[in-house]
């Protein structure tokens, strides 16, 4: 089998790929951490409008160091700036946007994604302090819920599975997964391979995936710039 670590995409490259599917004017929520990186790779000529759970629509890039206004932060508590056309609102209105189906896409991280679209991304189930934030709201609100993730756990286990073993964030909510090796859609309870790295064979990819990868159409090449 190919040396996966030699060919797999970096987080930046996964984020770049996810960003290519965001349309101009789309309303987008990016999960805390890795998903926030997607905003850096917006397509030329596309201006998405970013929503943050804590009550801002159309925030912009981080301010220069030393220029932070700590009342102007995103859900990850990082300082942000405003774009022209921004607005503030309280938390109930913010989650009305989420729950009410007004966001075009939410992009989240994952511990596991099941072929049924179930997502586990909030609890390792190992004790400690549980913390859910807005993840459970986002997965049942946005018109499209996508995940970006490494294809494998740090231990080398598949993150795309037939059934999640960790506590669920939501049931049947994910429709596309951007991994370090492939782009996989979830349709009618199945993983459907949309794109894969040219350097990996279908069989190798299947071996690294915890449930059957279906093919319903031509599988595209997952080609991403150096980042």
């Amino acid at each position, binding site marked *: 089998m190919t040396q996966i670590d030699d060919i797999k995409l970096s987080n930046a490259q996964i984020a770049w790929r996810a960003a290519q599917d965001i349309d*101009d*004017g789309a*309303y987008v929520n990016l999960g805390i951490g890795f998903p926030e990186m997607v905003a850096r790779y917006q397509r030329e000529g596309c*201006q998405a*409008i970013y*929503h943050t759970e804590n009550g*801002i*629509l*159309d925030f912009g890039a981080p301010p220069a160091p030393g220029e932070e206004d700590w009342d102007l932060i995103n859900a990850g508590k990082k300082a942000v700036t*405003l*774009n*022209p*056309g*921004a*607005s*503030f*609102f309280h938390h*109930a*209105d913010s*989650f*009305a*946007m*989420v*729950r*009410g*189906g*007004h*966001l075009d896409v939410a992009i989240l991280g994952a511990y596991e994604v099941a072929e049924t679209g179930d997502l586990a991304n909030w609890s390792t189930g190992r004790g400690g302090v549980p913390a859910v934030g807005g993840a459970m709201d986002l997965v*049942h*609100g946005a018109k499209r819920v996508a995940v970006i993730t490494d294809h494998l756990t740090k231990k080398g286990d598949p993150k795309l599975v037939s059934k999640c073993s960790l506590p669920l964030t939501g049931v049947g909510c994910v429709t596309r997964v951007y991994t370090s090796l492939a782009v996989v859609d979830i349709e009618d309870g199945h993983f459907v391979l949309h794109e894969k790295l040219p350097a990996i064979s279908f069989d190798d990819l299947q071996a690294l995936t915890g449930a059957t990868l279906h093919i319903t159409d031509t599988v595209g090449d997952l080609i991403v710039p150096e980042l």
Partner: protein
Amino acid sequence: MDKTLHSLADAVSVIPDGATIMIGGFGGSGAPIELIHALIDHRPRNLTVINNNAGNGHIGIAAMIEQDMVAKMVCSFPRSKDPRAFTERYLAGKIELEIVPQGTLAERIRAGGAGIPAFYTPTSFGTELAEGKPVEEFEGRSYVQERWLKADFALVKAERGDTHGNLTYNKAGRNFGPLMCMAAKNTIVQVSELTQPGAIDPETVITPGIFVNGVIEVQNPAQEEVLNLAEAVYP
């Protein structure tokens, strides 16, 4: 992104027969007269209209009813100074009425916009308006289960807007506008002044643009009450 619509006719041309339409306004305040009259010109039929009232005089929603465009009204108070358009058709069995307590109407619309399919309210418990609805007791008091209300379209009047759809309203003309913007698949808003993004202070935006699909500038819009005092008729 630019949500600007370039004519009233274009703005409402997407509304087909049989559509459910929320129309902003409380009496004449906040009534989007120009959008309604453009809709009358377009003349879809068999509409369900959600508004606090059911029209007054011979303009606005009353004129829609007179043109036999409305199959059903959902409202709290279908009375006005001159309610003939609705009253005559209602008493003749030609228009359906769903009467909803005003606060329940507002909350059902908000629920539709906020992804809340049902909620419990003390309002209407023990009355004929609660008949057939589930009742549940919480903390020793009885409440009625009400469902969300959504629409295919919303027609709303706002004061300032920008091309991203951010809105402010004029005084009590706000009323149902912000809620209806949330609860319709396609929200079309007439604004007295259309600006570029950034012109409205983010702290003072009442309806964030995410809830708005199209904005059209109608400078110096008609006020329904003023038109009625002048005994206006449309068309």
